[in-house]
């Protein structure tokens, strides 16, 4: 976005995905089984390079640890103040 971005802690396995489209964004999750999984308004996809927002202190997601779901209780969902990140079956 214009001159601001989110801080994505280096060890986070989940980051924002933004493209230059109106009202459009999603999430990228690095998984153990499927590699990068991208969730976008048109659905989910996997097996491709992610273009992500990055941000201060950010490392490319390919260099990060894959998500292990925090042993079934994902911390990213618990600490998300707006519940944008939710766990569903």
């Amino acid at each position, binding site marked *: *976005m*214009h*001159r*601001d*971005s989110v*801080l994505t802690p*280096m*060890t986070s396995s989940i980051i924002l995905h933004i493209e*230059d*489209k*109106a*009202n*459009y*964004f999603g999430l990228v999750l690095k998984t153990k089984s499927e590699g990068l999984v991208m969730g976008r308004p048109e659905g989910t996809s996997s097996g491709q390079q992610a273009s992500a927002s*990055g*941000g*201060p*202190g*950010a*490392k490319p997601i390919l260099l990060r640890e894959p998500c292990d779901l925090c042993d079934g209780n994902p*911390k990213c969902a*618990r*600490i998300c*103040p*707006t519940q944008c990140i939710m766990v569903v079956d």
Partner: protein
Amino acid sequence: MNLRNGKVGFIDLSSGESGEEEVEEIALGEDSLKGILAKHGQDSVILGTGLLTGSLIPASCAGTVTVGNKTMPLMGHAGVELKLSGFDFVVLKGKASKWGYVWIRDGIIEFVETPEIVQLNSWQRTDKIRSDQGDSKIQVLSGGPWCDDGRPAAQLVVNHWGGEDKVSVGAGFGARKLAAVAFRGMGELELADPETHFEGSVEMMQSHLSRLGPNKGLRSYYEGAVGEGFDGLVHRHIGCYSCPFPCRTFLKTEEDSKEFRHMHKEPGYLHFDVSALEAAARAGLSARDSIRALARCAQAGAEPATIITASAARSSHADVAAIEALLADPGDLPPASKGNFELSFSRSADYEECLGLGLCPRYWGKVGLDVRAITKCAESALGRMIE
């Protein structure tokens, strides 16, 4: 050392020599700033991070910039990024012979001579440094022409936006031929007991959010940011690091605020400067003109409450053109702002304690500075008792 690097970096702008010193944990407490000033000279510029900056405690985003007896908060992601650069504090001593900027990253500090940078405004400096260093994520504290001239109402801007420097720290930069300070870090911070710290922080955040209700960005902190004028220009709300209840609202003046993408080169401005918006309201500026006025002041490195108030006093009708004229030819203009984040607490001691801990004064002023709850959560991260 948990939540700390245990290092103070320093650079002598006169010689370009830099180094670092290891510091015992006990010396990195709340009185650390005084000790560093005593050692390196009272006229040093000190970039600092708080004890809890970068923790999971809500709004643990704050750093500081100190020049002499003046300290400004460092918000957004800048405080955390500074800590991730490998230093808890960075000391800038002396005066450079040519204009340039200090570049800090991953345990390295250097002065980059860039004489031509002084011809640029603060936004152009930020863009140039990011372009020259090839990284758009670099955090930049930039001065502008007003800072270079050492004017009493100078304002340092942080990543383009103003609102933190209400004490003319920017003039201290200009006095040292320092056009900007840039930093980037990819370090890591250790926690003593990550699980307990996480659980405590989440519990604290949820308790706060249940009391605060829905967030409306700056409007949640400043009732003046309401009404059709502002509401129609709101593009998004942005949180600083670890803040669950943001006060930063980006307003678009140059294109449709309902459009997510940006088409215009300078579509608008990120607002969190309550005192400047109050001054704009008193001067009778419209919401759109207030935004434009604050943007012009940020580019010039000038404190907007002072500029808008002076402009209104000089002419019967304050507008952006009059403000631009004043920025170009200010004369002798004393600072008029009483603070922004500084006004979050009625007691200055609470403000200083909050900032020393690395916590946002605005957020904690709103939820109430519960030192006992913070201490309990902090000790799980630090692995030691806090006095």
